[in-house]
C-alpha cells in the first residue's frame, strides 16, 4: 500500500462523532446492511447531501476529537465513499484504531484546520508526516506513522483483514 495521497479536501468541524458517520437508527439497527448502502447515511444528520457528492480519491479534514463516541466503525463508510485519506486536529483512540484496521490512511494533524480550506488540494505522506497544500504551496509536518509500529504494518497490509490473513497462515491456524 502506498504512503502518499493527493486529493481534494472536504472539511468538517470539531467533534464529528461516529454516531454521525454510522447513524444508529438508520444503520446499526440493520446488521446486514452492506457498507455501500450504509455509506449513503454517512453524515446525513449534519450534512445531508454530502455522501452523494464525494468523489473517489477525495480527502477529509476534521477538527478536534474526530470520531468521538461509539466504537462503531466510522472509517467503513468513509472508505466505501472513496475517501483516500483522513487528517484531523485530534482523533478519538477507537476511531483511529478502526481506521488503521480498515486500511483507511488516517493521520493526527494538529494545525490542519487553519492550513487548508475546503476544495483545496493536499498532498499527504503518512510515513514522513509531510503535508503540502498544493493550492497555497505551503507545507507542514506532523508525526507520521513509525515504520516499525504495528499500526503502520497493519495499514501497509491494507487493513487488519489482510494483516490477519497472513498472520494466521504463518501461525499455522489455517490450512493445516
Amino acid at each position, binding site marked *: 500500500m502506498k504512503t502518499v495521497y493527493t486529493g481534494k479536501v472536504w472539511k468538517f468541524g470539531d467533534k464529528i462523532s461516529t454516531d454521525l458517520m454510522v447513524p444508529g*437508527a438508520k444503520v446499526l439497527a440493520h446488521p446486514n446492511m452492506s457498507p455501500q448502502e450504509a455509506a449513503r447515511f454517512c453524515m446525513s444528520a449534519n450534512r445531508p447531501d454530502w455522501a452523494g457528492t464525494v468523489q473517489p480519491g477525495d480527502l477529509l479534514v476534521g477538527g478536534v476529537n474526530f470520531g468521538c463516541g461509539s466504537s462503531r466503525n466510522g472509517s467503513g463508510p468513509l472508505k466505501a465513499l472513496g475517501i483516500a485519506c483522513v487528517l484531523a486536529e485530534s482523533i478519538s483512540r477507537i476511531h483511529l484504531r478502526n481506521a488503521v484496521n480498515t486500511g483507511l490512511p488516517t493521520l493526527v494533524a494538529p494545525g490542519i484546520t487553519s492550513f487548508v480550506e475546503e476544495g483545496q488540494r493536499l498532498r499527504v505522506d503518512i510515513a514522513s508526516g509531510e503535508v503540502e497544500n498544493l493550492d497555497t504551496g505551503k507545507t507542514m509536518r506532523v508525526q507520521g506513522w513509525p515504520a516499525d509500529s504495528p499500526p503502520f504494518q497493519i495499514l501497509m497490509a491494507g487493513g*487488519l483483514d489482510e494483516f490477519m490473513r497472513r498472520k494466521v497462515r504463518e501461525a499455522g*491456524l489455517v490450512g493445516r
Partner: protein
Amino acid sequence: MGMTIAEKILAAHAGVNSAKPGQYVWCKVDATGGHMLPALERLGVDRVWDPEKVFVVDDHQAPPPTIDAANHVKNVRRLVKKYGIKNYFEYGRGGILHQVFAEHGMYAPGDLVAQGDSHSTSGGVFNACVTNAALDGVHILAFGELWFRVPESVRVVLNGTLPAWCVGKDVILKLASELGTDFGLYRSIEYVGPVASQMTLAQRWTITNMGVEVGAKFAIFEADEKTDEFLLGRVSRPYTRVTADSDASYAAEYEFDLSDLVPMVARPGDPGNGVPAEAVAREHVKIDQAFLGSCTNARLEDLEVAARILKGKQIHPDVRMLVSPSSQEVFGHALKAGYLGILAEAGALVEHSTCGPCYGGHLGVLGDGEVCISTSNRNFQGRMGSPLASVYLSSPATVAASALAGEIVDPRAYL
C-alpha cells in the same frame, strides 16, 4: 523512574520491566468479548485462543426487533457453540455487557482486557486496564494478544465531600465541561482523592464508564474494600491491587474540590455541554421522554433513588419514562426490593436490560423535535433517534424529578 497504574499493567502483560508513554507493545490480554467471532470464522480459524476468556452477550438488539437482527444473533449462538464459549448469557439472564461481564468475574485488579463496545473503559472501576478493541477483537480471539501504544497518564484528584443529590454522574459531567471531552485522549486517567474513596462502587463505575466520553483509553480507580466486596464470589482467581509509584510521571494533574458541586445537566450535542441543572431549570425545558437506563446509570442505587423520588406519585401526563436496569441481575434485585413496582405504579414503562434506547436502536427511539432527559452517556445529534431530537444528560435523581415535573428541574429545588 516510577510507573503509573497503566504503565505497570501494560508492562506486566507485555513481559517487560518498564513501559514508557509512546512505546508500542504487544500485550497478552486477560479476556475479550466475542463480537468478532464472525470475522474469525471468515478467516478460517477454527478455535479461539482460550474459550474460557471469551464473554458474549447480545445487548444492543435484545431481543431482536427485526428479522435481520434475529438472524444475526442466531449466528452468534451458533458461533458460541462452535468455539466452545461458556460465558454466553441468553436473554433474561444477561443484560448490558459491561455490567453482565463484571457480574460474571471478567475483571479483577491488575487485569488487561480489551473488548467490543466503546464503554469498555467502565471496567477500570475494578483497578484494571479495560478498553475497547473493536475490529481488533479478531486478533485477540486468534492470538490472545493485542498491540498498545503506552499512553501518557493523567491524575484527577477528587477533593472534598459530595453534597446531597450529587453523585458520580454529576462529577463526570462537571469534569467533562471543565476539562473538555478530549482531555483523556490517548491517555490513561487515574482517579484518586477523598471523593474517590467516599463514592460507592456504582458511582465510580459511572465515571469510568464515561471515560470514553472524555476520550480516555483507560479510566482507573484504585481498589479498596468496596471493590473486593463486589468481586467476592464473582472472581475466584487471586488478584493483586495496583497502585502508582510515588515517583510516577503524569502528563497532567487536575484537582477538583467537589464540596460545592451542584446537580449537572449536559445540554444537547455533546457530553461536555454540562451546566448546573438550575440553569436549565430556569428555561423550563419541557420533556417528552425520561430515560433511566444504560451501562452508565441503571444500577441498583440508581433505581433506588428514582423509586424514592417517584414513590406514591404520578409521572407528568405529557412524559413517558422508560426504565431499563443495567443487567437482569440488577433487575432481579430491584424487583425484590420493590423499586420496579414503585416505578411502574408511578407510570414508568419498566423494560428489560438493554442498550436499545441509549443508542437509538429500539425500545424508545426519539422522533423529530422530541426532547429527552437521560441517565445515559451520549447526547450527540441523532444519538437516540431523530437528528432533530434533543437529548440532555443527567443523574438518575435529576431524571426522576424531571419526569415528575414534566420539564428539566434541579432535584434539590424540586424535591
